[in-house]
């Protein structure tokens, strides 16, 4: 249905013959590592038919020997034991692709930053290097050749929301020759910008964009239309709308914030003016005989710089037009736009009195006036003001429709009413789900010119994804065994990228390769062990060398592994009795791997990954932490020391933290897991 599975009989699998390539780093590691010994032990490993000793892989011509070996029919896979791959990867990958070498059959270990440079004792560094190579060769023996496949892409883009960001995105896409379906729940184009009298420029721009959209033949507009559901995959989505269906390759969500829903709730006040009312009153010059007026910006709720800008502008205008005493009450002026400090200075020059206080003044409603009493924090003076008119900024409304929408799009729960999840790696417009992008103030509060920019940016991202009508994707990354799949939906719910579809006919889950990011979260979550991740299968992660290390570290390749590299560069030292097993994400690790490592003789197992919300795979670390905490509870119940299993977070550059993690508590009591227990 979604992607045709390719049968992959792997002839090489039965008798893989591997080469191990040792890079001697231009002779600089001779004092730290005993290369002849490492080469000898590598040569004895099962399946290894050739050991190459290479002078410097990263230097011009340095990889010739390796390439020659790989082109030899008798070698089917290779392990490179060298330094941090960043030094040699780019050059080597180019050589691989021009020589048609499948990258899945080449694996790497770091014997410089993870061994030579962190363990001053030559024999233990050598021993560790041999051990790393042994485990990596074991994993490599089980590696599989993975091809690519052609995936067709529908270049039409569905844009949800016809505010400034949505309209801008639609027009930018049409310019790039994409067909666009633009839907809005409203009965007209323009969104919130049209309803605001405070910023006439935004309203004017909205009218212009709406006009251009109506004239554009590539854009079909559906008003009073909602998204009912979204099926399919990136490149071939089927959007079911309240009127009809739209097939599209990508979706841009630009639903904005909600319509204006009234001012902030203040104690003891009913029926206050909104800023918008005040703007209209100023525009039409409707009110007169005002002696003293007040504007409240953010006494109860946080406001952004757009609201601050509006408040200063309205206060100045009222002061100049009506000549009344004008007070602006606020906690914080958000002045982080370039011209905003000038605007503030101007307002003060115009005679606006700005009163700042972190605590809300005492507010009492009188018959035709409002009384505010409190202390100004700037001057320390008390104030007691009777105001003829009080305007209050709108509470920043959360769009309640957002939750329903993101559930349909499977892009995670909104945070603080904002559709985009709060994760560092989603900046600026990503949703975490391939083919779905966010634009405008539905993802973060923006001023109107930025909302336009955001629309263009999202359109550019969508265009990069759908440049051509077809793309190449890996034939598989994670794969579900239909015979084992219980159709329990665990993978469907736990996939951070919503890359799993449920095949109703065959009652099995399917991983969509073009959306899969290969994090392995579904693999670890699946209760039936029905999913396997290429290059990181359960059997590959459970390989332990003959003499296991005291501490086994499952290291996330986006953080902990890089931190280990940094520790090496900084020549920090830690115990050589540490084995590092790279994983794509901490979320790949399930308790079985931990228990197998303990069973094989490890004293301590560490799972090191990113911080929550800085996890490249969104909630990979969160899921892992939950699983490991359950495991720790279970260990306690069995009377074992739960501290033999720990999970921690760190950032890629945090070398010191990595060393602290692997050095702490190595002497902990070793739990005894009987070897007979089947895990």
């Amino acid at each position, binding site marked *: 249905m979604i992607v045709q599975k390719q049968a992959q009989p792997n002839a090489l699998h039965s008798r893989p013959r591997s080469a191990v390539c040792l890079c001697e780093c*231009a002779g600089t590691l001779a004092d730290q590592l005993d290369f002849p010994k490492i080469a000898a032990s590598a040569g004895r490993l099962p399946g290894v038919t050739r050991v190459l000793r290479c002078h410097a892989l990263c230097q011009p011509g340095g990889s010739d020997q390796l390439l020659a070996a790989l082109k030899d029919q008798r070698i089917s896979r290779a392990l490179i034991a060298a330094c941090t791959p960043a030094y040699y990867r780019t050059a080597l990958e180019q050589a691989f692709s021009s020589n048609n070498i499948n990258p899945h059959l080449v694996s790497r270990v770091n014997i410089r930053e993870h061994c030579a440079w962190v363990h001053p004792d030559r024999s233990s560094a050598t021993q560790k290097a041999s051990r790393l190579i042994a485990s990596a060769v074991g994993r490599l023996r089980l590696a599989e050749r993975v091809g690519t496949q052609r995936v067709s892409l529908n270049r039409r883009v569905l844009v949800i929301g016809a505010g400034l960001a949505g309209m801008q995105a639609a027009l930018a896409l049409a310019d790039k020759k994409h067909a666009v379906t633009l839907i809005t729940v409203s009965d007209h184009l323009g969104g919130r910008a049209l309803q605001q009298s405070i910023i006439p420029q935004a309203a004017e721009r909205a009218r212009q964009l709406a006009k251009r959209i109506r004239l554009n033949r590539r854009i079909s507009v559906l008003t009073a239309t909602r998204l009912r559901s979204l099926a399919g995959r990136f490149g071939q989505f089927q959007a079911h709308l309240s009127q009809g269906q739209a097939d599209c390759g990508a979706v841009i969500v630009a639903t904005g914030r909600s319509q204006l829903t009234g001012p902030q709730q203040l104690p003891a006040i009913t029926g206050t003016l909104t800023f918008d009312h005040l703007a209209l009153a100023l525009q039409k010059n409707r009110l007169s005989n005002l002696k003293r007026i007040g504007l409240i910006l953010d006494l109860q709720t946080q406001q952004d710089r757009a609201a601050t800008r509006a408040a200063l502008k309205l206060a100045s205008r009222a002061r100049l037009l009506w000549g009344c005493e004008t007070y602006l009450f606020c906690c914080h002026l958000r*002045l982080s736009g*370039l011209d905003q400090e000038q605007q503030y200075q101007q307002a003060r020059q115009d005679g606006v009195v700005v009163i*700042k206080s972190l605590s809300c003044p005492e507010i009492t409603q009188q018959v035709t006036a409002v009384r505010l009493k409190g202390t100004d924090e700037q001057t320390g003076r008390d104030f007691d003001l009777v105001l003829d008119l009080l305007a209050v900024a709108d509470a920043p409304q959360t769009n309640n429709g957002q939750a329903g929408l993101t559930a349909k799009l499977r892009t995670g729960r909104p945070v603080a009413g904002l559709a985009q999840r709060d994760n560092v790696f989603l900046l600026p417009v990503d949703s975490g789900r391939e083919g779905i992008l966010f634009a405008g103030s539905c993802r973060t509060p923006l001023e109107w010119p930025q909302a336009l920019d955001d629309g*263009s940016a999202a359109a550019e991202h969508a265009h990069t994804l759908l440049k051509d009508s077809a793309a190449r994707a890996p034939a598989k990354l994670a794969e579900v065994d239909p015979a084992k799949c219980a159709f329990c939906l665990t993978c469907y719910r736990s996939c951070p990228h919503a890359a799993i579809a449920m095949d109703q006919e065959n009652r099995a889950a399917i991983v969509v390769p073009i959306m899969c990011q290969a994090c392995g979260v579904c693999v670890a979550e699946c209760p039936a062990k029905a999913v396997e991740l290429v290059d990181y299968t359960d059997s590959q992660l459970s390989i332990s060398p003959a003499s296991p290390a005291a501490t086994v570290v499952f290291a996330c390749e986006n953080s902990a592994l890089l931190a280990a590299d940094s520790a090496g560069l900084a020549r920090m030292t830690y115990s050589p009795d540490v084995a590092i097993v790279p994983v794509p994400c901490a979320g790949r690790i399930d308790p079985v791997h931990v228990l197998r490592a303990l069973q094989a003789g490890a004293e301590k197992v560490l799972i090191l990954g990113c911080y929550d919300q*800085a996890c490249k795979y969104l909630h990979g670390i969160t899921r892992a932490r939950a699983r490991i905490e359950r495991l720790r509870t279970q260990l306690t119940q069995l009377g074992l020391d739960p501290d033999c299993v720990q999970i921690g977070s760190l950032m*890629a*550059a945090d070398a010191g933290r990595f060393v602290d993690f692997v050095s702490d508590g190595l002497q902990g009591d070793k739990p005894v897991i009987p070897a007979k227990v089947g895990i």
Partner: protein
Amino acid sequence: MSQDLSAKQALIIGGGIAGVSAALQLSSAGLQVHLVERDDHLGGHALDFGCKAIDTCQKCNVCLALDKFRQVLQASNVHIHLASQLDALTDSSNGSGFRATILQKPQLITPAKCIACGLCAAACPVNCISPATPALGFTYYTIDRSRCLALQGQDCHKCRDLCPTSAIDLAAQPSTHQLDADAVLLAIGYEPYDALGQGTYGYGTIPNVITGLDAEHQLQASATILRPSDSRPPKKIAFIQCVGSRSDETAPLAFSSQYCSAVCCAYALRISRLLAQQLSESQITIFYMDLQKFGKDYQTLYSDCRDKLRLIRSRPSRLEPAADGQVLLTYEDVTETQVCQEPFDLVVLSIGMRPAADARRLADLLDIDVDQHGFLNPLGSYRPGIFVAGSCSGPADIAETIQRTSAVSARLLDTLRRAPLVANI
């Protein structure tokens, strides 16, 4: 008719966050990208920032920036020119695009050849060789040109003799080369406010007065912040906000600093929360004017700060050295309507952002307007095909820089997709 982008080249000036994110975006759209960086390494200021996570991430986005730097080093169609600057830009002779003259300082150590073995650094008699980008988990060594003995005319070549890959050439000469570009993006970033040069609050003379940037460096190097005088954890810490921002007291500077630098509240509050957790006995005071909003979880962060930190709305008038390395801070407490003096173990000056030193020269070279503060017009140049991105067009944090750059890159690509640029008439 839209143009084939793979035949086009973009020139990006500045290898900080803005330049690098633009390079990634433009190269993924198919362009050949030339990234010109003034320093010996990419990364700009962000390379020196530390992670501020407590148990949870505080969204300072430093890890995202580092991730982008690592990506760009691996990107195949991004050509990086280090230690280089744009010297001239003329219209190309064929009437479309530009011809740029790039001046490159001598490359004493060729990054592509350096294997980071560190033999040179260990042998250098004046310790002038250091790793360039250790934070990326990938580095090469660079020579401080001002301290290298060989460059002062002395007969020293210890490093060159030891280098196992012949990556060192002490006789390297500056070079000039020409690059063709269909579009130019200026992303030269900012300079931190020069508290030392201005002698602000006695920085540089009073011990234990540090800047926010110093704090970031410490955080990056050691994941915590200690008092410089005795390397001990400070108990009473003060942050002074808006140093070099929102004030016209910096009048001797070429440009006014009557603007909010947008980033200082965020970093001060994040570092404060981190310290409050690390040093549970410490008391942290923030002297502020207005706290700027940032990030989606601002609400949580703000209420947490109000619980844990002492917030005083005041601009301290002066700092003086006191006994035991303490700093005596004088401020007006308006709630008590009196002038107070209070000693602190450590005072952090939350310095703001100033326009890049090179901004004026490049603005003149490329016909870009400069505003009253010295920042470049975000809309770019009068000459079509020249764009401006990142904090050189106004203070911005990492998130906003990436956001703005993404929009500018989209604009640049749209321009290139249209008919070939016509030379200025």
